[in-house]
């Protein structure tokens, strides 16, 4: 009895605090900021150290917010820049001043050096933090800043130029004594040249943009055809993403791990490494989950890699935070991949295990201070995992961008040891113009198990409505046996999910649990539906049923169950199991904190529809379910199946984006698998092919047109 009362009180308290969080986003911000202080214990901010008065952050989204937060703590005034559509964005609200630098397209705003330089002058900013992407690795920009005497919070122009070019960087790395991958030392002229070179090196080969980064403009080829195709697509992507279509080819290291070393240098020739980050979980060469440290490295390899990275940094006079990326094969041989001369997206996990605030250090170094931290001061303190929460559909090719308005948004900051780096809030629009990242969810703990456990809990409690997101995939990876054991490589996703990600596969115990929860939601709603507060009229012989026979349609199965209310709990009999669900949950809250058979589970009620339709998020994946009485279920067999549109006769846009090109015209015959058009979204080009052979009946879009998800592009006869 006392125990029940206590848990009830506790859950009320929990709900109250959730509510408070919900009501006051700002309080949540300060809360998370104060928690963050606990992370930065190595060389904390010294208020007496001279620094800049005002800096401009030439970026948007989460990274702009991230930089602003540290700058504020250092007592530096901040200036945000933004495009017109970003006028109300969190990074604008967070900064002391904000300047609009153009329209939505990045090339008209965040890439407009002239306007950004004007903004720097008019606001009197003394330094610029570029974040990542946009102008962060643009030597020209750095030079222009130098010319007007403004500090660039990043490396010097020479280091950027040297490392920005893949060929040059490889030469420099070799000169510094860093292991490199065998490959062709020059620019590929055309597709046939690419095939010839690939044959010389031997398949598989990696075709990539010389100016590239972040997986854009990268293709792997296993044969001549793929080499030709890869060259074509990489060239186009490189041109549209970097304005530089030079392509190079190198040996592709099969089954590798992607492990990178964080380095930090100052202007006095000092450089240290802040250990590694394991970033092997990737899709299409873009990282999904990162962790620090890596389960794979032993102390000797870590030291060897770190020392080579530092040697490279010293060689090029690197004076900021940077990352040296390596491919590591199964024998712990490591090869230099590239150096990113900027703050990396995944820097928070390094911060969590080393206690170093990298933005703080970048600003210090840019101001001309020397590093106070020496190599022996850098700890590995526990474990940190970053899950990149993206607005994308993980069921399509492990993630195709999605757009929409965040109609509801709650970060799981009420949980301990959770850090959310995000630049959006409830009501924000995820548009086709920018990166579809919603948040970097960083969870840490004393060891990998704890970090994993906290990540799973945090993902379960993460409320995102209005856009499709990749939490189902993230949550599934974190519980997958190979990942849990640490046996990962960059081929992890296609190996573990050879037919693509299909959502959480339920065990019979989980299915019973989910059925029980759904039945409980149904009955709770049914009971509420008859509970009128102002019913002045007597109800006619209305009796509340003592039990219900229901059928729950979930994950393609019809699960019958019996449910009754007993001692404040729903007792649900599913097959031969009896599952008890504490009835104290709340149908209005997006999170159901349900006690199922004594275990506390966080389940999300996405939509309690009419007619028994319930959309629920369980263990990451959203399930569209229907709960009906057994009577209704019996009659369902009489209901005819609605005819479905023949998908093979139409080509639908798999995601919102821009029509880049159309490769057919009405009346043309197209073969199965033939490209009919290319859709560009978030700077990725996606070739869409006909699903069947046939004659083109109609083309419903024009080049340059913006299309929505599921929009019919091409129709076959």
């Amino acid at each position, binding site marked *: 009895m006392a125990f029940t009362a206590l848990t009830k009180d506790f859950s009320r308290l929990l709900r109250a605090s959730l*509510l408070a969080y*919900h*009501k*006051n*986003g700002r309080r949540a911000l300060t809360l998370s900021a104060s928690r963050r202080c606990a992370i930065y214990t190595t060389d904390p901010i010294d208020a007496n150290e001279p620094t800049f008065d005002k800096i401009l952050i030439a970026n948007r989204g989460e990274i702009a917010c991230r930089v602003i937060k540290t700058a504020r703590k250092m007592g530096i005034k901040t200036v945000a820049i933004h495009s*017109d*559509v970003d*006028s*109300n964005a969190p990074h604008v609200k967070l900064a002391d001043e904000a300047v609009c630098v153009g329209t939505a397209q990045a090339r008209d705003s965040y890439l407009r050096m002239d306007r950004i330089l004007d903004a720097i002058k008019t606001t009197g900013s003394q330094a610029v933090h570029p974040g990542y992407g946009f102008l962060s690795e643009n030597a020209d920009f750095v030079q222009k800043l130098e010319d007007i005497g403004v500090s660039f919070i990043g490396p010097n122009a020479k280091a950027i130029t040297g490392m920005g070019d893949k060929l040059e960087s490889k030469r420099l790395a070799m000169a510094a004594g860093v292991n490199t991958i065998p490959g062709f030392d020059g620019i590929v002229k055309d597709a046939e040249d690419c095939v010839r070179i690939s044959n010389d090196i031997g398949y598989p080969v990696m075709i990539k943009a010389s100016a590239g980064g972040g997986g854009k403009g990268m293709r792997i080829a296993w044969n001549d055809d793929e080499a030709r195709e890869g060259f074509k697509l990489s060239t186009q992507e490189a041109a549209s993403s970097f304005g530089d279509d030079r392509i190079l080819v190198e040996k592709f290291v099969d089954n590798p791990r992607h492990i990178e070393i964080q380095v930090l240098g100052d202007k006095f020739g000092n450089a240290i490494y802040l250990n590694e980050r394991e970033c092997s979980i990737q899709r299409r060469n873009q990282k999904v989950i990162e962790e620090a440290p890596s389960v794979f490295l032993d102390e000797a390899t870590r030291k060897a890699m770190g020392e080579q990275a530092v040697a490279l940094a010293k060689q090029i006079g690197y004076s900021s935070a940077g990352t040296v990326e390596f491919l590591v094969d199964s024998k712990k041989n490591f090869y230099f991949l590239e150096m990113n001369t900027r703050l990396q997206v995944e820097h928070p996990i390094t911060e969590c295990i080393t206690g170093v605030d990298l933005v703080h250090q970048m600003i210090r170094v840019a101001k001309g201070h020397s590093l106070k931290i020496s190599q022996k001061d850098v700890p590995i303190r526990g474990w940190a995992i970053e899950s990149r929460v993206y607005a994308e559909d993980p069921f399509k090719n492990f993630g195709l961008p999605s757009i929409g*308005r*965040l*109609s*509801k*948004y709650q970060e799981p900051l009420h949980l301990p040891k959770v850090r959310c780096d995000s630049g959006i*809030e*409830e*009501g*924000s*629009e995820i548009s086709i113009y920018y990166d579809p990242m919603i948040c970097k969810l960083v969870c840490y703990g004393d060891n990998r198990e704890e970090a994993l456990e906290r990540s799973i809990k945090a993902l379960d409690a993460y409320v995102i409505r209005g856009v499709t997101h990749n939490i189902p995939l993230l949550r599934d990876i974190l519980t997958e046996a190979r990942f849990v054991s640490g046996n990962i490589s960059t081929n992890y996703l296609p190996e573990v999910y050879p037919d693509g990600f299909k959502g959480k596969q339920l065990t019979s115990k989980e299915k019973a649990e989910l059925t029980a929860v759904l039945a409980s939601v149904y009955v709770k709603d*049914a009971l*509420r*539906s*008859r*509970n*009128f*507060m*102002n*019913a*002045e*009229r007597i*109800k*006619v*012989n*209305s009796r*509340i*049923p003592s039990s219900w026979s229901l059928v729950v349609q979930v994950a393609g199965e019809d699960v019958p169950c019996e449910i009754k209310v007993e001692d404040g709990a729903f007792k649900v009999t599913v097959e031969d199991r009896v599952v008890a669900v504490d009835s104290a949950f*709340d*149908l*209005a*809250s997006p999170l159901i904190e349900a006690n199922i058979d004594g275990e506390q589970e966080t389940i999300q009620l996405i*939509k*309690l529809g*009419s*007619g*028994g339709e319930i959309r629920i998020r369980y263990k990451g994946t959203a399930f569209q379910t229907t709960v*009906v*009485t057994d*009577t*209704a279920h019996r*009659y*369902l067999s*009489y*209901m*005819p199946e*609605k005819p479905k549109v023949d998908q093979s006769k139409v080509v639908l846009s798999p995601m919102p984006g821009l029509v880049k090109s159309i490769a057919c015209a009405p009346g043309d015959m197209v073969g199965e698998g033939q490209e009919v058009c290319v859709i560009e979204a978030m700077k990725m080009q996606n070739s869409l092919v006909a699903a069947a052979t046939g004659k083109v009946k109609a083309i419903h879009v024009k080049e340059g047109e913006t299309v929505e998800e599921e929009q019919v592009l091409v129709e076959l006869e």
Partner: protein
Amino acid sequence: MAGQTLRLATGSLLKKYVSLPSLGLNTSIIRHCSIAQTIKVRDDIRKKRSEAVLGGGKKRIEAQHKKGKLTARERIELLCDPGSFTEFDMFAEHTCTDFGMENQKYPGDSVVTGHGLIHGRLVYLFSQDFTVFGGSLSSVHAKKICKVMDQAMLVGAPVIGLNDSGGARIQEGVESLAGYADIFQRNVMASGVVPQISMIMGPCAGGAVYSPALTDFTFMIQDTSYLFITGPDVVKAVTNEDVTQEELGGARTHTTLSGVAHKAFNNDIHGLLNLRTFMNYLPQSNQDQAPIRQCDDPWDRDVPGLDTVVPLESTAAYNMLDVVHGVVDEGDFFEIMPNYAKNIIVGFARMNGRTVGIVGNQPKSAAGCLDINSSVKGARFVRFCDAFNIPLVTFVDVPGFLPGTAQEYGGIIRHGAKLLYAFAEATVPKITVITRKAYGGAYDVMSSKHLRGDMNYTWPTAEVAVMGAKGAVSILYRGQSDVAKYEKEYIDKFGNPFPAAVRGFVDDIIEPHTTRRRICQDLDKLATKKLTNPWKKHANIPL
């Protein structure tokens, strides 16, 4: 179960008496007769009941199922709380003696009537049985329907009709027509007294369509229901048009083109379960207040998402449903006519548990302007809410009435007046939030202060003006060259909520994220609102 025990008991009784030879002959025969009679009657009752339950017989039931339709009784079973349905007139039989009809009788005839409970609340209902004479309407069929309607009126409870009928019982001739008229008369008498809901679950053609048309809401089932005055054959004969049943009067036609039906559902089960949900919003009669259901959603919940819902660009579209979903309890909105006249949104929701009627201009569709269809759609909804004491919450973003010959020739003046009339006439609590544009006459129409709006708010993004800047400047400064300057001047003056606020035409300029709490507070306050219109026989809305 009960029937079975009864049969066993009477059977053994019979045997017992037959095997008693020692009794006196006369008394024994008389006694035996009376006992046998009692037993026979009981047997007959049981037989008739089981016949009634089978309607037109197993074969016809199978045929009904093959069409993807449920039987009249199965529908009732799904609509009502388990075991709550009580049937009337199960033994009623048609009275026709022509065309050999006297030999074809089915107990209950072609309709099942009675009352039941939906979420514990009383409803009267009739469900036409297509398996008996194709659900055709005989005089008895009509009388059965009239009986439940009379009772519903007497006690004040909603009437639900599940329509699945081939039309008039031709064999009965004018009797059948009289039956329709009797129902129509009751539909009209009940209008505004108890909610009347029709769900078309099969054919409904000819004169029969007018009963659903007179009720408050008409729902349809996709692919299996049709509503038309004359079927495709007659259409072909008279106008030489080729048209399928579905095109002429299917669910799609009536929910997107004609506006005859209010919503369509996938199939019988989906429709009936949604009807249960729908009934949960309605009061029992015009004597009852709008229901207040237990509410888990905090009334004072801030809705931060609303602060960014109106785009910065004042001509850019946004989805008014985002506003509605954000404000109402649990984002639960039962939209009425979602696919017809999409430039206006109407539907039911709850605020702190209390049912409210939501009306909103939809900037996503035709810029949210008012035209003929949207005015009529809005007006009918507003009048339903007013009739049944359901408070009105109106979200305004209206650039004006749609111009053009099509609208003028179609009578936009007459039809636009309906919405104006409906809002002006309504005495229920009226709360209005202007989210962005409120231009011209359309501003007046949309539940403005001047039409006895109780609480009128604007968001900071609101512009209340006679017209947009471009139009205004072209009149005010006709022939002047410096248009841009004057436009800017006009926008500075009118492109904001102040002109309306300083005159008290809006009560406050509120931050969007506080909208829910403000409306909930006002609804509580206005629960005791007392306002009556002058006595009249009835008002004369411009039909």
